């Protein structure tokens, strides 16, 4: 007998073929970007690829593409990006794991309303909210310059995280929903408190969900440009690349190198996420 999950050969081939064709433009674009970062000029055909490491050296020496001589600290920029991304990831993960559990497992007043509100909130694009969010920023921004810098990080993480939270909470609720009540009851009968059950039984079981939420939030923070440019005093990779593109004198291969650096975690994380999400807990519940 054939396993349920194995599709017939023919339809499988068709699906793979479709996927391959659909991804050709994207793969081509990414390849050209990466190739260009190792080339003296932008790669548009085979002849224009003249290999060099110069772009990467310039990038790590902090040379801006516009003038080719002004130095910025690329490590600091990367660190800034990392702080924002990790901050968003941490915030979103903690909030959505707690809220997801509560929405999935606890019966409290207004639970339905919270769930509807989450969906509605998710429907709002971040750009639409930015005026209000900016007003709040203006009102709360401290005067002291050092504090101001610190606060701008805090604020951008909070604001950008808030955009991710509704969907992440939904996602986590779904993961908790998928765990049979029996696991929780069993833990309680064994003598555990609700908190202990959450920590020792539920959390390990939703680990794939937590990782997925964390990865998506990290990438959202890493890639964000609108919120970062509006609120953050320091630069991140996104705003750095943007400020380079603005000039017509830009040395494009250098920007290609910065772009590649900017894309790297996204690619790496999606590879990891894919493995984790597919893995899950196979055969976890019954024989």
């Amino acid at each position: 007998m054939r396993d349920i999950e194995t599709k017939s050969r023919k339809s499988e081939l068709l699906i793979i073929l479709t996927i391959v064709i659909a991804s050709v433009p994207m793969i081509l674009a990414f390849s050209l970007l990466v190739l260009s970062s190792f080339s003296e000029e932008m790669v548009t055909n085979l002849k224009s690829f003249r290999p060099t490491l110069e772009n990467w050296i310039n990038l790590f020496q902090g040379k801006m593409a516009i003038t080719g001589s002004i130095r910025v600290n690329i490590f600091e920029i990367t660190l800034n990006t990392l702080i924002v991304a990790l901050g968003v990831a941490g915030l979103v993960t903690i909030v959505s794991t707690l809220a997801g559990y509560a929405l999935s497992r606890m019966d409290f007043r207004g639970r339905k309303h919270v769930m509807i509100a989450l969906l509605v909130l998710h429907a709002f694009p971040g750009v639409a909210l930015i005026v209000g969010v900016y007003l709040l920023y203006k009102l709360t921004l401290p005067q002291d310059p050092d504090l101001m810098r610190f606060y701008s990080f805090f604020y951008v993480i909070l604001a950008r995280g808030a955009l991710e939270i509704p969907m992440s909470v939904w996602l986590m609720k779904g993961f908790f929903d998928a765990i049979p009540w029996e696991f929780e009851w069993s833990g309680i009968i064994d003598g555990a408190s609700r908190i202990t059950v959450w920590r020792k039984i539920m959390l390990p079981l939703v680990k794939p969900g937590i990782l997925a939420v964390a990865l998506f939030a990290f990438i959202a923070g890493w890639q964000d440009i609108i919120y970062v440019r509006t609120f953050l005093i320091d630069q991140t990779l996104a705003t750095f690349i943007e400020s380079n593109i603005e000039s017509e004198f830009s040395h494009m291969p250098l920007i290609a190198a910065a772009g590649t650096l900017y894309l790297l975690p996204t690619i790496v994380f999606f590879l990891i996420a894919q493995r984790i999400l597919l893995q899950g807990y196979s055969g976890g519940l019954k024989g």
Partner: protein
Amino acid sequence: MVRIRLENITKEFGDFKALDGIDLEIEEGEFMALLGPSGSGKSTLLYIIAGIYKPTKGRIYFDDGDVTDLPPKDRNVGLVFQNWALYPHMSVFENITFPLELRKVAKGEIRRKVAEVTEMLKIENLLDRYPWQLSGGQQQRVAIARALVKEPDVLLLDEPLSNLDALLRIEVRAELKRLQKKLGITAVYVTHDQAEALAMADRIAVIKDGRLLQVGTPEEIYERPRHKFVGGFIGNPPMNFLNGFADRGILRIGKSTIPLPKEYESVRGEVIVGFRPHDVEIGEGIEGEVYSVEHLGREQIVTVSVEGEMVKVIVPGDRRFEFGDKVRLKPKKIVLFDKKTETAI
């Protein structure tokens, strides 16, 4: 080991009454089966004994102590869930020791108890495995080990065998009963399989639609069902029922009549007569026509159509019957049920 007493237990989920006024006593060391069709409220009752659900009305006593408001962990019960609920991220050892770790039992003590319980259940060589690496039968043993390791006063089992294949189920049920008697533990066993209940239980409580229909030993439940439903639910094939009219010691079924036993002499009016397929002789009595014949080796099940209703009869395998044969059935043991209430008269 405790005696459990349930007093007028009622459980409502919103508008829906899952349990309705259950009164039940379970003796110390007794093996009590809760038997009923799916959705009858068996699990709900079990969870109420465990403390997972709070009854809407009624009290629960362990011995003489009222435990109605005690949380599950203070009731010292072991529960084996229908899906076993083994923690997938923990090894067998960690699963079994989880209740002990929570009680902060000393390491040496833990090892001793685990050795004892795993040896008893013959799973001592599986300790390093994970639940998904075990067969159904092994998972079930681990779940029982986890329930027993904390030496509970009461062992609660929710259809623990329903996920096993038929042969294994018969093997395990004998073993489980032996284990329960050896430990002398009070056990409540939920099942929808009447054969399982008959084979294992000291007493059976039959539940339907949240109501307790009858409590009794397997013999009592089998021989003297107090409700038409109990007769029709227990036995394989179950009890036969025919509509009839009783008058002065005579029961009329369609064109035929049969005499009623002494205890039913005073019954008069419309009744339902019930009799077991084993308790029928073919000879004088109720007129019918052979509808089908199934051979089971030593015996055969003959389905007879009586006034358009089907009656199953088990007779020795050496007699030959053909479709359409006219036969007369003589029930040796009958139970009369009230036509309206369907309770035994």
